[in-house]
């Protein structure tokens, strides 16, 4: 065990030296399964302290990208550097400075909250004392201080997620991967997780987040990429992406005769129309003429709102289901 600890200590030292440049860099990364390219040549770099969002519909290749970055599968082409180390070659020592919050909860069901943290800390070769010293702080951070001795089955979904987050921090990582951290949580639980992620960013941690909640990406990520069919189809800050791809105003209209109204009147008043089910989405730079037209149509109901990331996402990846 002593040997293991020294080895990991050296790894940490090397990782610290290289903190000035990117903590994660991928170049022309490719991966195929059964002849289908799931990751089809993506490149990106992530700077220390950044929160980078990876958005995409189900099956876009987000999780495979994370697995490639962690060295859990070999790329068919391209290269990855994680914490300045080539992956998968030196993935194991790179992971010393990395935390992972997986998509599916995989806490140890046989253990208490505290035991989960202790056992996980041992995988990093951390001395028992160092692990025990870190735990109270982590439990506080996760809002689980009163739950140290609880069994996992007794925790709510939100508590489990927070414990998984605390577990990912047991080695005080510089970079944290989060694969859909708030999927399946209620709004209260989701907001608490967001609060904690902001705290981590304020501490200077780097976060790579995959999600299909646009609101989440908009709140947390300084920079994001939208991924579809294995490729990055656009990249930038949430604001930039909205400005670049979407008119600033969106009016969602539905009600009797909406399709006829759309073709005969609305089409001429807006820059773009999208029909989905029984709703018409109108995108406009100046919404005044459209709203005037709607004010004389009592049978149509509408919602006028600023364009958001979800509009960008749906425009770029389409409205059809992806299951």
């Amino acid at each position, binding site marked *: 065990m002593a040997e293991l600890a020294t080895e990991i200590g050296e790894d940490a030292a090397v990782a610290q030296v290289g903190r000035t440049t990117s903590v994660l860099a991928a170049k022309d990364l490719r991966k195929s399964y059964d002849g289908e390219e799931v990751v089809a040549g993506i490149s990106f770099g992530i700077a220390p302290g950044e929160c980078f969002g990876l958005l995409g519909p189900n099956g876009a290749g987000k999780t495979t990208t994370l697995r490639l970055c962690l060295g859990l599968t070999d790329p068919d082409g391209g290269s990855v550097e994680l914490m300045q180390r080539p992956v998968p070659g030196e993935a194991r020592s790179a992971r010393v400075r990395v935390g992972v919050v997986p998509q599916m909860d995989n806490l*140890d069901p046989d253990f208490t909250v505290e035991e989960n943290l202790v056992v996980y800390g041992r995988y990093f070769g951390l001395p028992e004392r160092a692990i025990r010293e870190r735990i109270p702080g982590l439990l506080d951070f996760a809002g689980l201080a009163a739950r140290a001795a609880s069994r996992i089955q007794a925790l709510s979904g939100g508590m489990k997620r927070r414990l998984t987050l605390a577990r990912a921090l047991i080695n005080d990582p510089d970079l944290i991967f989060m694969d859909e951290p708030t999927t399946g949580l209620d709004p209260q639980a989701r907001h608490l997780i967001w609060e904690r992620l902001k705290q981590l960013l304020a501490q200077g941690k780097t976060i790579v987040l995959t999600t299909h909640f646009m609101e989440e990406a908009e709140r947390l990520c300084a920079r994001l990429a939208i991924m579809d069919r294995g490729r990055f189809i656009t990249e930038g800050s949430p604001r930039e992406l909205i400005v670049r791809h979407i008119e600033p105003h969106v009016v969602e209209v539905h009600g009797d005769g909406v399709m006829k109204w759309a073709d005969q009147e609305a089409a001429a008043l807006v820059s773009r129309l999208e029909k989905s089910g029984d709703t018409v989405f109108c995108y406009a730079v100046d919404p005044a003429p459209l709203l005037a037209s709607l004010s004389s149509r009592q049978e149509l109901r509408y919602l006028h709102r600023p364009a958001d990331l979800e509009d960008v996402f749906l425009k770029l990846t389409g409205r059809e289901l992806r299951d």
Partner: protein
Amino acid sequence: MQVFAPPSMSLRFVPVWRRNLLVWRKLAVPSILGNLADPMIYVFGLGYGLGSMLPEVGGVPYIAFLAAGMVCSSTMNSATFEAMYSAFSRMHVQRTWDAIMNTPVDLDDVVLAELVWAASKSVLSGAAILSVVWLLGLSNSLLSLWVLALVPLVGLTFGALALAVTAMARSYDFFMYYFTLIITPMSLLCGVFFPVEQLPELFQAIAAFLPLTHAVAIARPLLLGHVPADAALHALVLLAYAAAGFYAAAILFRRRLLK
């Protein structure tokens, strides 16, 4: 990751082994009782029941003959069960392995930990039966202490073979095939209940290739107070099965989990 590379062997497996130990400690009492009950039923049921109707087998009372077979077969069962059902739960159902592989512990380390753990648990089983054998006075020789060295090897052998099966399993049902087609026939062919020499020649020839035969061939003379003939050869066969099983398991798990 080279799929066919030899498994890496490092002390990184220790924290994973300790994880399994911690889970076991919470359930230790029922687990030990469970380990003991099944083989004890055989020892008493067959040993005294059937044994009372039999003349001596191999020059000793049947129950003394049976003792070595029971030590080996319960070690085999315990290692097999742990490396199949329990390891499959951790890998596939609970996704414990996924969580571990996000840390500086590699898949090879996890597989090694599972192997050593299965062997460790089987040592408890084997040692428990052995103590009962001593308590019943079925073995009085100091040579029988050497069985304590054999049991871990038997555990490694069958743990490794079972892990290779686990690496191919899609559900728990798959393990029934292995029990029905491999483990049960082995219990009957390998000299656990009666001397291999009682079998037709064809089956004797098959038995000579099966690992359990070689485990029994070492354990029985030791318990009866003799130095086993060709002990090194038998141990080598067990070691070869362990190495081949572990290598196959490593390859199969890599193909399954690192693809």
